[in-house]
Every structure is written in structure tokens, then in C-alpha cells.
């Protein structure tokens, strides 16, 4: 049976000094190896959910909390953040802020987390080299992290966390501050991750096409509450998403327009390119 890695039961949280609940009555169980996409309009509480799942709530961000919060079968509040480090990893929006500043080369930057975990040098060297190869950073190994482009820096942030082999990885809008080329680099890295490891991933993003490709399950968060969760095709084709300001994939929009223009109704709208090809084939 697949293990549950993170569990929130009737979980609500409001930040210290804020009267409103950032997330409320969240019931969520994340299974080992799952890739969950989290979508929602700005201010919906997506990042807060990410912090709650990674343990930064309640250890880093304080406030009023109710309900139950478990990580790896233990109460999160009872497990120090330093103990969770290495088991949970978080990649945030701004790539620049994730460069440690303490190391002078890309190779050393990837090793920084492993050094803090006290990893043996030989094993560390092996893991660093493997990670550099895996995320196509090997050619940049001797460059300064500050000399890299935004996309390369975000790939480096991702690689640095993954070198620590966390059980749970939270990616909080990792492409939001990148140009299209940089975002594409990060997409590729996440694809590499999903293909080569069984790390459980929570991917918070506005890029619906991307989530549709990689996620096992999509979770819709609106005004701090979960408004729906399920397989990408089921969730991302719901008409409710538009009024919530979430929108839909370009494939779904095109299919919807085509369906209404042709006055036909197809059973399932597409959310990925492959599905779109299948959907439009009868028209070609």
C-alpha cells in the first residue's frame, strides 16, 4: 500500500497579525510518489499550503493554526524544522534568493545542502556529479552561480535541493519570474525529475498546460479552500475555473470554441497536446 507522506485534516491557518485565514478547513492527503499540481487565483493561499506541507508553518511562519498537520507520520509541530530539512525541500519563485551566497561555483552550490547534512565527502562528490549531469549543469560546474541566467539559476536551485534526495519537494511557482526560455529550462528539469525519481512533488503553478502534462492530481484552491481535486483532464476542463480567474489550457479553450462553432458536443475536452490531437482528428 502506498504510504501517506503528508496529511492535513481540517487544517486552517492565519498569519500572525492578520485577521483573515490564509487557508481554511483543508483536508488533504499526499501519497508517496504523487505529483500534485496546485492551481488557484492570486491570494488563494497556494504558497501558504506549500509552507504548511513543508513544515515552514508552524516553524517559520507563526500564526493561528487549527486542525491536524502531519508529515512523514509525525505531528509537524513536534518535529523541528532542522530535522525536516533534507526530507522536505522547497523551491521558491525568485531564483536569485535561492543562491546560498556562500559558495563560489555551481558544483559547490549543489553540495551546500549535503555539507549541512554532514554527508561523507566521497558520497557527496558522487551525488553532486550525478545531479549536475541529470540537470544538464555539468558544463557550468565551475561557473559562479551569480553568472548564470535566471532559468539556469532556478535549475540550480532545484538541483541543489534534489541532491539532498528529499522525500517531498514543494515547487512554489518556480517559473513565475523567468522569461519563456528560462521557464522552458525549468519545465525540462521537472520532466527529468518525474522521469528519473519517485520524489513526491507538490507543484504550485499558473501554467496549466504544464501541470496537465506532469500532474497525477490537480487541486483547486480558491479563497483558502479546496474547491476541487482530481485527475488533470477532469479538473482542468471544468467550466467553474473561468469565474474563479483560473482559466483553462489553450487546448481546452480551442476545443470549446470549435465544439460550440460546430455545434457538437464531445465527451471530454483536451488538456494536453496529445489529447488535443486526438480531439481534433475527426475534423481534419
Amino acid at each position, binding site marked *: 500500500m502506498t504510504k501517506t507522506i503528508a496529511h492535513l485534516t481540517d487544517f486552517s491557518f492565519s498569519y500572525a497579525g492578520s485577521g483573515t485565514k490564509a487557508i481554511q478547513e483543508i483536508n488533504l492527503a499526499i501519497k508517496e510518489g504523487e505529483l500534485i499540481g496546485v492551481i488557484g487565483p492570486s491570494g488563494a493561499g497556494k504558497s501558504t499550503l506549500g509552507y504548511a506541507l513543508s513544515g515552514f508553518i508552524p516553524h517559520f511562519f507563526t500564526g493561528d493554526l487549527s486542525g491536524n498537520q502531519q508529515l512523514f507520520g509525525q505531528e509537524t509541530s513536534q518535529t523541528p524544522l532542522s530535522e525536516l530539512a533534507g526530507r522536505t525541500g522547497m523551491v*521558491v519563485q525568485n531564483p536569485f534568493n535561492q543562491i546560498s551566497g556562500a559558495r563560489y561555483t555551481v558544483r559547490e552550490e549543489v553540495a551546500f*545542502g*549535503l555539507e549541512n547534512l554532514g554527508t561523507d565527502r566521497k558520497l557527496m562528490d558522487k551525488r553532486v556529479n550525478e545531479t549536475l549531469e541529470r540537470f544538464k549543469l555539468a558544463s557550468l560546474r565551475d561557473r559562479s552561480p551569480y553568472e548564470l541566467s535566471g532559468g539556469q539559476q532556478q535549475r540550480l536551485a532545484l538541483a541543489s535541493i534534489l541532491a539532498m534526495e528529499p522525500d517531498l519537494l514543494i515547487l512554489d511557482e518556480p517559473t513565475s519570474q523567468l522569461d519563456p526560455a528560462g521557464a522552458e529550462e525549468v519545465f525540462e528539469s521537472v520532466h527529468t525529475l518525474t522521469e528519473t525519481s519517485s520524489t513526491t512533488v507538490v507543484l504550485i503553478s499558473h501554467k496549466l498546460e504544464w501541470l496537465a502534462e506532469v500532474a497525477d492530481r490537480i487541486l483547486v484552491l480558491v479563497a483558502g479552500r479546496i474547491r476541487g481535486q482530481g485527475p488533470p483532464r477532469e479538473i482542468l476542463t471544468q467550466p467553474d475555473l473561468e469565474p474563479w480567474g483560473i482559466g483553462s489550457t489553450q487546448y481546452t479553450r480551442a476545443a470549446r470554441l470549435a465544439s460550440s462553432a460546430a455545434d457538437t458536443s464531445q465527451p471530454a475536452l483536451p488538456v494536453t497536446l496529445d489529447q488535443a490531437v486526438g480531439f481534433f482528428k475527426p475534423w481534419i
Partner: protein
Amino acid sequence: MAQLSLYRPGSSPLHKLNPLTKLAVMACCLGAAFGFPNPYWVVGFYLLFTLSLAAWGGMLKPFLVQNAKLILPFFLSLFIIQGFFYGGATVLFPLGPFSYTLEGVEVAFGFTVRILQAIAGMTLFIFSTRPDHLMLALQKHGFPHQAMYLVVTTMQIIPQFQNKALAILEAQQARGLETQGNLIVRLKALFPMVVPMILGSLIDIDERAIALESRAFSKPGPKTSLIEIPDSETQKILRWCLVAAGLLLVVWRAL
């Protein structure tokens, strides 16, 4: 990349020495600068010892250029001020009511070579030692890694913040902010520049702290290092000898 550090990458034997050994070399150079009673001995030490080490480190030319750049203001001010105002019987040339004396020149020469030797000792160390390597070596001897982190990060991040300040300046100028002109205009321009910088930095702090915690920064217990900082019994003995020599020279002068 812009950095506060003046480290010059290289693979010379000097570069490969343990940073603490190079720190001891610097201590010895400082001891020689201020310990030798006769400034000509300081010149001899500079030519024979300090310059030889710079050549051994493969950085003689940039080393000399840096020395010259740093000593020039001292040289000019000391030779002018001491020459005219130190006093003395041997007048080299008069200038109006003032006399430029040989005794003043000798005093200026003494100060200048001592400062030059001190600068040279520090340049030798700074040019050949990567700041993070020094921190790793110190950490190995029990210095707290949080303090070491602060020092190294500051050296790398301050230039990045300078870039950020420049970006804010350009963005505000693009919105029509006057940044050139008299003092009042410049003071007025300060507020719209400082506020985004501070607010942005406060937001950055949270993200930076999260990123560090995700990398187990505050995890208790022993840390390891990917980089091996070379050390040996010979270097340990050499360190003690160099520090002792520096101290002896200073004590000699004081006696």
C-alpha cells in the same frame, strides 16, 4: 562577476597552501613591517621575501601594480608633509617660508616602506586566498559556521545588491524621477529609491531564509565540506614559526 573579494584565481603552490598558513605569512609580513628597527631591513625583507612569495604565487605583476596603487597616496602625502614639516638641519631646498629637509625625507621613507610592507603582506594573502576557503579552514578549527556564512555571503551579495540598486535607480529615472542636480533634488530622489530597496530586501529575506532552511542550514551536528582544504604537519609547524617570527620582531622593536 563583481565581488568584494580581490582573490585572483590560480593554481600556484602559494594558492594551494592552507589559508591559515597564508594568514600566518601575513602575520609575519606585518611583524616585519613594524618590527625591524631599520627601514632598510624592511626594504630588504620586501624585496627578498615578500616579492619572492608573490612570484611563487604567479602574480608578481598584478601584485606590484596593486602595491603601487595603494602606496601612492601615502607616498605623496608623507613625503610632502614630513619633508616640509618634520624639521631638521639638512635643508634640501627651500619653498617660500618652508624648508624641505633630509631628516623629513628619512622619516617619510621609514613610514612609507613599513606601510608598503604591511600592504604587501595583506595583498599576498588576499590575492591568493579564496574567502570561502579561509572560512572553511577557520570552521574546521571551531569557528561558528553561521558567522563564517555571514562574512562570505556579504562579500558575494553586496555587489548583487549594488546591481539591484542600479536597476531601481534606472526604473525610477524611467518614471521621470530627477536624480541629478543640487543637494535638495538629490535628497528628494533618495526616498523613492530607498523605499523599494528596503521593501524588496525584506521580502527577499523570507525567501532567502526558506531557501537556506531547505538546505539544512540550521541543522545541528557536524558539517562536512566538498572542498578539501589541504593541510599537513609541516604547514602546522611552519604556521607557528611564522607567527612566532612576526611576534619576535615586534617585541624586538618594542624593547
